[in-house]
């Protein structure tokens, strides 16, 4: 798997589409109370959305339902240090999802 083969960008791997999708998923997250929250690229999961780690588990499951096994939030977060998790932004997650989709598109 190399990164130079990303000349074609499938529609669902477009960064803004992914960001918008994640914002929608967050607003609809059960028990999180984010229906009316302002969410953008720079929004912090921990300090601004006040998401508990168990909400990230739910988010991970929802992203897998949408994107399939190409997107694995558990592995992404498992590689982060605790302070990196606390400083995680919505934009960083969107970038990770976009990169994962592009990587698998390049493979095929």
């Amino acid at each position, binding site marked *: 798997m190399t990164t130079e083969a990303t000349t074609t960008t499938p529609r669902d791997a477009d960064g803004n589409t992914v960001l918008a999708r994640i914002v929608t998923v967050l607003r609809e997250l059960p028990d999180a109370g984010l229906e009316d929250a302002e969410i953008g690229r720079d929004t912090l999961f921990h300090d601004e959305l006040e998401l508990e780690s168990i909400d990230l588990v739910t988010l991970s499951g929802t992203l897998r339902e949408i994107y399939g096994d190409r997107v694995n939030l*558990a592995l992404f977060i*498992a590689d982060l240090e605790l302070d990196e998790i606390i400083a995680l932004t919505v934009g960083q997650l969107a970038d990770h999802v976009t990169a994962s989709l592009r990587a698998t598109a390049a493979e095929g």
Partner: protein
Amino acid sequence: MAKIRTGDITTHVQQLAAGAVGGAVPEGEPPVVVLVHGLLTDSLASHYFTLGPALSAAGMDTVMYDLRGHGRTDRPATGYRLENFVEDLALLLDGLGEHRPVHLAGNSFGGTVAAGFAAWHPGRTATVTMIEGEPPVAAWAGRIGDGLAHARRELVHEEAIDWIRERHGAHTARLSRAAGRILATTTLAEDVPAGRLIADDLSALRRPLFALFGGDSGLAAQAPELEARLTECRTAVLPGQGHSVLVEQPARIRDLVLDWVREHHARRSRTPAGAVG
């Protein structure tokens, strides 16, 4: 999000099958590892982002669930004795159709639940790993009862939460407030120390046990006694670590647990077929 009926409550469970997140899937039936989290500030998320993916990638079926009162599992007002937690786990395995003996790995109170399960359901238990955990003996019940009573007195006060925020930051303060809510709305603090115990000689623990401790934690002093009392026991003390060693040193805990489960799974797999060849 998977929810399974376990008796009078609904339990939130997350499964990662062997190889679900990549890695090699071994030949034959894979081992199943059940991860059990700790009390109050904990949920299956602690494992979901640490041990879970690594176990799956190493070819192990991995089950993570939220204990009653925690995470996305129901929070009944009463029913928090150790036997309730152990029964929930038995019913969860029934609900999942899991008939293999399971390798249990529990963090803190999750280790106590795992040891209780091994004592009362030995036929369903392959091995037990306790990470900074204690078996359910009388001395444990006394300690945890004191700790929970103290937490319940303190964590309901907003001033205490403010103090925690100043000393330990907003993250710990938020966790403490959530812990206070569990203690204020349930009988957990009275129930946990009043539950079923095992005898001090640990004769009820007949499955192989692996106990991991942080060297700076008060619990590490129990390692020699565990080794002396149990026939199949391994202990490991990680120097410079405290009670939250799983969160601080996930990679080292992961490697130790992986080796332990691999070794015992290989031994179990050999035993029934060994007579043939």
